[in-house]
């Protein structure tokens, strides 16, 4: 089995992750909570290289929800980066964003979506948007590179201007280029 059939990640030359990074900077994001996903690898590198950003690798995604609620208590804006499967780990913790009215932006790379190979990714991937919306999250999708930056920017604005959870789902059609061992 080739690794490229298991992993979905953007072509190394794809520049849309830089558009996400620019949106994070433009919106004053300085805490980045994440569980890594191949689809976020270029963005994670950009964030790690930025000494104005505090990047925290979580053991499970719900930690990030609580952490960003704490960041906002301290007047700092953060974002949660994760794969669609991680959304399932966040469900109850998203209550905090509602009860406190805490801005909570999430950027979610999709699996179990367009042309998925792995059956195990399907249940949570297909439920991701429903689950987020069931927990009161405003959800936008981006499936084309040219839509990514504006969609993420909208998600950040909605979260911080209207004090609620908001998510951008980055579709697998966008992410799905095979890597053939390239990073």
């Amino acid at each position, binding site marked *: 089995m080739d690794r490229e059939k298991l992993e979905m990640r953007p072509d190394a030359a794809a520049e849309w992750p830089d558009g996400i990074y620019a949106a994070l900077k433009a919106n004053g994001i300085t805490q980045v909570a994440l569980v890594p996903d191949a689809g976020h690898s270029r963005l994670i590198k950009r964030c790690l290289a930025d000494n104005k950003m505090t990047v925290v690798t979580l*053991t499970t995604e719900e*930690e990030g929800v609580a952490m960003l*609620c*704490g960041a906002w*208590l*301290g*007047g700092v804006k953060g974002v949660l980066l994760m794969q669609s499967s991680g959304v399932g780990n966040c469900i*109850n913790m998203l209550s*905090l964003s509602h009860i*406190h009215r805490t801005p909570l932006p999430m950027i979610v790379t999709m699996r179990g979506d367009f042309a998925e190979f792995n059956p195990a990714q399907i249940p949570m991937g297909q439920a991701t948007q429903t689950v987020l919306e069931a927990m009161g999250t405003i959800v936008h999708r981006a499936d084309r590179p040219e839509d990514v930056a504006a969609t993420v920017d909208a998600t950040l604005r909605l979260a911080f201007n209207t004090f609620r959870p908001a998510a951008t789902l980055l579709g697998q059609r966008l992410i799905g280029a095979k890597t053939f061992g390239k990073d």
Partner: protein
Amino acid sequence: MAEYPNRRDLVRALLEDRGELMVIAGLGASAWDITAIGDTPRNLPLWGGMGGAAMMGLGLALAQPSAKVLVITGDGEMLMALGAMATIAVQKPKNLSIVVLDNEHYSETGNQETATKHGVDLAAMARGAGLKEARTLTSLAEVPALRAQIHAGAGTVFAVTKIAPGNLPLVLPPRDGAILQARFREALLGPAAHHQL
């Protein structure tokens, strides 16, 4: 063996002369405890998000390195956040302290036993995660030293405090989380907190 301290006596000793200490309390009895000692805008008693207290403390401590942040939570709540020990230990902010009130029971739900009743050692787990100074206290006499450590910003502090089981009278904080968050932010950041963009 002497009885473990009453939880409110312990929290009272911990919060004595607290100054500008910012306190987050896990849902349930820990939240009632900090409220019984004295409700203040510098308290953030949680009403939900079980397992989130320590990580909320991390987010705040990283956001405001000059503020002293104390998370007070129960053994049941901390057992739900064992992975957070690793996440926090990697960051290790000096201004963060986590105190687990360990009565070895889920006191809010009918006093069912927790894992700590059966030998699970939260301080040992925290040490294993990298919080090398994590320890367990069993008496009120040990609280002043812990309190001094919290105020010194010599963290990350992780302490398990054994307390007597049993429920005390409910002392409820305001129930509207938006008010709890807004007043906490104002106490820390000033009125400008309400205009943050």
